[in-house]
């Protein structure tokens, strides 16, 4: 096999996948945990049919080894076989769970560089999004897994905008508010004011933390970094953020966007509860409030029903200088996908 030398990602040489369109075929895989039940799959494939998209199934999506969909070798083989298949134009993990990080040493990153394809997921899939984005210099997508891309109208609209279009996502809007009642956190609570511009990177904090000190550690210089988690105690969020701060990960970053972080409140984990714990908001102010870069908390991505699809590797800007939530501007300035004909011309 030809070993492609993969240059470090930069604005000039970033690889973009072809936008997904009607008539295309996608590969359904389970690099982390298996399908809960066969019925979960049926609902997702019905949605693909509605969109006019065909699919091929990985052979291990229903297998099980501990909480993983088969052993590491089997999951890696499935993932790479479908990626290598020239009829497949997008790789759509059915769900996250646990186990994707275990695959990283088994992957041939030159394959993903040679054949740029759409990869969409969140939570455990973060490990693949960050590693493949960096090692293969490819735009990858932090968005709903296949089993969740139809969860709400907002989620589905941003999914289509991100992977089925060659236009930039543009100014990001929030899902509509309920007419009555309150919601916490607000979608764009300003933790630190400022303005920043850079390429996007990020994902689920637990997974990002798990890549620290490894060859796949997240690169943050000049980036707008988005992070979120689910059902974690605030002190565990603090420990992970403190690790990133200690490692200098925000020293040269352009901005930080913290997601809604569903269930991340004292007692939320049911796992390691401590008395008198702070809120995530208080922790963010202590750890990220004085870095000199813009920071917001509450954007809807990751473990919430409403979620934006965020492409890793495209230019974006964050402006929190106004200080008020309703003045925060988050723009994704650059398209994440290219048109198939543009690729053929190259």
């Amino acid at each position: 096999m030809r070993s492609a030398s993969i240059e470090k990602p930069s604005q000039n040489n970033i690889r973009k996948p072809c936008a997904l369109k009607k008539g295309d075929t996608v590969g359904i895989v389970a690099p982390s945990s298996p399908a809960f039940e066969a019925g979960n799959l049926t609902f997702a494939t019905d949605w693909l049919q509605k969109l006019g998209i065909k699919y091929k199934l990985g052979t291990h999506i229903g297998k099980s080894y501990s909480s993983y969909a088969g052993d590491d070798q089997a999951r890696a083989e499935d993932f790479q076989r479908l990626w290598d298949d020239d009829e497949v134009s997008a790789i759509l993990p059915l769900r996250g769970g646990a186990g994707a990080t275990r695959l990283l040493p088994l992957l041939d990153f030159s394959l993903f560089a040679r054949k740029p394809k759409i990869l969409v997921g969140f939570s455990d899939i973060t490990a693949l999004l960050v590693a493949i984005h960096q090692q293969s210099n490819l735009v990858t997508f932090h968005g709903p897994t296949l089993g969740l891309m139809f969860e709400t109208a907002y989620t589905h609209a941003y999914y289509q905008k991100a992977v089925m279009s060659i236009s930039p996502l543009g100014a990001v809007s929030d899902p509509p508010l309920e007419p009555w009642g309150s919601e916490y956190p607000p979608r764009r609570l300003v933790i630190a004011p400022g303005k920043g511009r850079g390429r996007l990177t990020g994902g689920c904090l637990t997974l990002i933390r798990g890549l620290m000190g490894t060859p796949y550690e997240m690169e943050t210089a000049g980036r707008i970094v988005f992070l979120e988690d689910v059902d974690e105690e605030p002190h565990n969020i603090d420990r992970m953020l403190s690790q990133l701060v200690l490692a200098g990960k925000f020293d040269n970053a352009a901005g930080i966007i913290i997601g809604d972080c569903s269930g991340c409140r004292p007692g939320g984990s049911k796992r390691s509860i401590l008395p008198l714990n702070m809120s995530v908001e208080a922790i963010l102010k202590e750890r990220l409030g004085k870095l000199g870069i813009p920071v917001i908390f509450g954007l809807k991505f990751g473990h919430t029903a409403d979620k934006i699809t965020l492409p890793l590797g495209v230019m974006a800007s964050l402006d929190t200088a106004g200080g008020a939530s309703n003045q925060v501007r988050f723009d994704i300035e650059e398209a994440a996908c290219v048109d198939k004909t543009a690729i053929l011309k190259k």
Partner: protein
Amino acid sequence: MLIKPPSLKSKDRIALLAPASRPAKPSALKRAEAVVSAMGFVPVAGAHALDTHGAMAGTDQARLSDLATALEDDSIAAIWFLTGGFGSLHLIPDLPYDTFAKKPKIVLGADDTSHLLFAMHKQAHVVTFYGNNLDRIDSKAAVERMACFFSGRAYGAGSDDIGPDYSAPLFPSMQVKDKVVADFCYSPVAAVKEGRVLAGNLTALVSLFGTRFEPQLAETILLLEDRNERNDILDRWFTTLYISNKLATVAALGLGHFENCGTRKSANMLSFEELVADRVSALNLPTCFNLPFGQSSDCAIVPLGLKASIDTGAGSLRYLESAFAD
């Protein structure tokens, strides 16, 4: 060059600090003082031990000040921690490591305070001690054993508990447990290896990854434990060790007590032992599970940095040098 602290003498003053979470209640501090007095030492509680700042015992500045003061104070012979919890990671960029190297003293901790033990050992090259925080000392035997350990005295000599190779009286607690471990040890890869011991909490070790405080793992006998955590989360952190390519460089791996760890009501999950074994077997890395090492008072106190020999097949660890300067 490894720096060793002096062992303790009767009436030595011991600082009782809370660099992470605070003791559960004011009487927990009184209890810790009584435990230390019962060992024949003089307890000196940190000024901020009962402060509150979120789940921590005071602000970062307050906790740091207690620790720095105790390190600087020549009248303090040892620093023991009252409890673990959360917060010690915040302190490590600002600790006076030079002072610690110049005035080495016994620092004992466990759980979250593992961050401090790793960082202080790495930055100052001083032997630090992984064993228990004071809130876990729960028997008269544990009080006696800990006093003997840090005084360099044999514990239980002549009793039936002592294993056949009772040749290193400096580490009686590990010797006592040797025999027990041999009965229960699970060893996916059995071998005898020598190396310097590095011991601590798995979550804390991985929390230092990518920072300048990340311990050097190459050629160490790496001993790991954790508490109150689910198998798949433990596997996440073990996976970090594995994919970092650093696991492959350790001489041997010893897994201790994983207290209150397990599937924690999640169905369809293998044990942590099996999740670790698939990769240590692939690496042919000498490994054993169920070493008497962890956070409870019946666990061995493990000094970081000493040369030792581990027999993973038998589940025994033998030190090749003393932990103390005298």
